[in-house]
């Protein structure tokens, strides 16, 4: 069977997802996500020895569009949902490049 999800794993995923979880949340999510994984792990009982791995859930292939421009949003529209702008750019808290 699938090994149980550890608290450390949840912590790591939270960091990667930029989520700040409290200790109680960590405990709760470790248990809840663990249950979800256990449920999905039922699939491991199916014998897949002769089954080719599936690269995509959709059977469709080769959907393309032609290289023809379509209208873009106006700048006002593009920036409309941004928490902060200067009317030209999206503004975000300063990005630190160097350590």
């Amino acid at each position, binding site marked *: 069977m699938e090994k149980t999800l550890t608290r450390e794993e949840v912590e790591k995923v939270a960091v990667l997802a930029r989520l700040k979880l409290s200790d109680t949340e960590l405990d709760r999510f470790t248990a809840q996500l663990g249950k979800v994984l256990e449920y999905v792990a039922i699939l491991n009982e199916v014998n897949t020895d002769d089954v080719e791995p599936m*690269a995509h859930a959709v059977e469709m292939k080769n959907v393309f569009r032609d290289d023809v421009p379509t209208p873009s949003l106006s700048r006002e529209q593009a920036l409309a949902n941004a928490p902060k702008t200067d009317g030209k750019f999206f503004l975000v808290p300063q990005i630190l490049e160097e350590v």
Partner: protein
Amino acid sequence: MAKRVAQRVEPMATDTTKDYTVVIGLEVHVQLLTKTKVFCGCVNLFNPENPNVQTCPVCLGMPGVLPVMNREAFRLALKTALALNCRIARFTKWDRKQYYYPDLPKNYQISQYDLPFSHDGWLEVASDEEFSEKRRIGIIRVHLEEDAGKNLHDETGRGTDSRVDLNRAGTPLLEIVSKPDIRSPAEARRYLEELKLLLTYLGVSDCNMQEGSLRCDANINLHLQEGDETIATPIVEVKNLNSFRAVELALQYEVGRQLDEFRSTGHRLGDVPKQTRGWDEKREITFGQRGKEEASDYRYFPDPDLVPVTVSDKLLEEIRGELCELPAARRERFRQQYGLSQYDASVIIDQGRRFADYFERVAQECEDGKQAANWVTQDVLREMNQRKVDIDKFPISADDLAFLLKKISARELTTKSARDVFAELLAGADSGTPPSAGRIDQIINERGLALVSDAGQLEGVITAVIARNEKAANDFRNGKQAAIGRLIGEVMREVKGADPKLVRQMLIEKIVGSEEA
């Protein structure tokens, strides 16, 4: 060889008891020359003056939108991979690479993970600056992904906000990953030069580094030889390389820095996590950057919004048919067809496709490849550099230059006179008189540069000159070679533009012949 290069560039590496090899792999990103972005119909245009005017819900990463693959982007990608001798996957798909950065509105980049559309190719580069030999640099993979937007950082240090322009988000981007086959910083530069030449020949990218359409990251470490043991130093990835020169300088710096670091810490590959370093162009040093997230941290998974692509034989043949003659093949053909040296052929090819087209037109029209190569690599190139124009803006057309060079082959003009005409054509062009065949003839007439190669026309003058200079003629007859010079000079003064070779030959025949008679 690696040792020689490294010691030359990095004098502090003076420990001669150690031998080492430099190991470099390059990761190049190039934007493709499509009209629109890779997954939406926004225009693909470098437009920094007008931020955030080339976006739509798809490239802004709005919920519920559906990206659709640009057919042309995929075709250009296939074309590039074929030209890089890659194997083309018959089944390929796109994956989501998850990371957070303000220039990435979806919080994932659509890229290719385990099934890139092409892999295992190679590119041949010159082994040294003299093009003596070729070295084959392996290509691990080429895959098609989307570019991110652009962050503009506040550089005042006052902690004001960073600005984000998403015009670039979703631009089709090829990632070309080389094997760690490159053995010196100079070779890294040559690889990039050859790659850029190939890509611009194919017309798949303009490779403009200033505008960011070609970007390069380099991975480098050293293999130190200590007795029987080979020790690998930790691999460093160098970023922010804004020119080929920067790539070479940064890698030279890294060679010395890694040697020093190994001496002081003894760290080997695996002892410390992989480091990312930036290149500081002003100080010409690399500096440490944020730690790189492990590959598994990107949590790749197949993008459910994009369907896989299969490549048929028919499509491959079609794309193969669209490939033009590639630079390496053309370099070789120039050598054979026009009898050029490896060096001349390379100088011409390395200037780009339009320049090589110009040369070839001149060579074919004047029917003298070597002559054409001499003029194009010396006179034309020099004038182009002085005027800072490329060949498309060069005032003298290939046909006009060929017209001029033909006159040299036909012995109607000396090479020296042709250079005068060339200079006057350019001077004329600068003051508003466009060069033309008619203009060439006009200059030759006005300045009396036409070579007189008509023996009949020279005959009388030569007889008269010999008669007037009995002593000089006798001196020559008696073995005083220098005496002929005076006679030639006199003939040339009388018949402006007389072919000096012919004059000399006729004079000798006359003097020696009259003795025999």
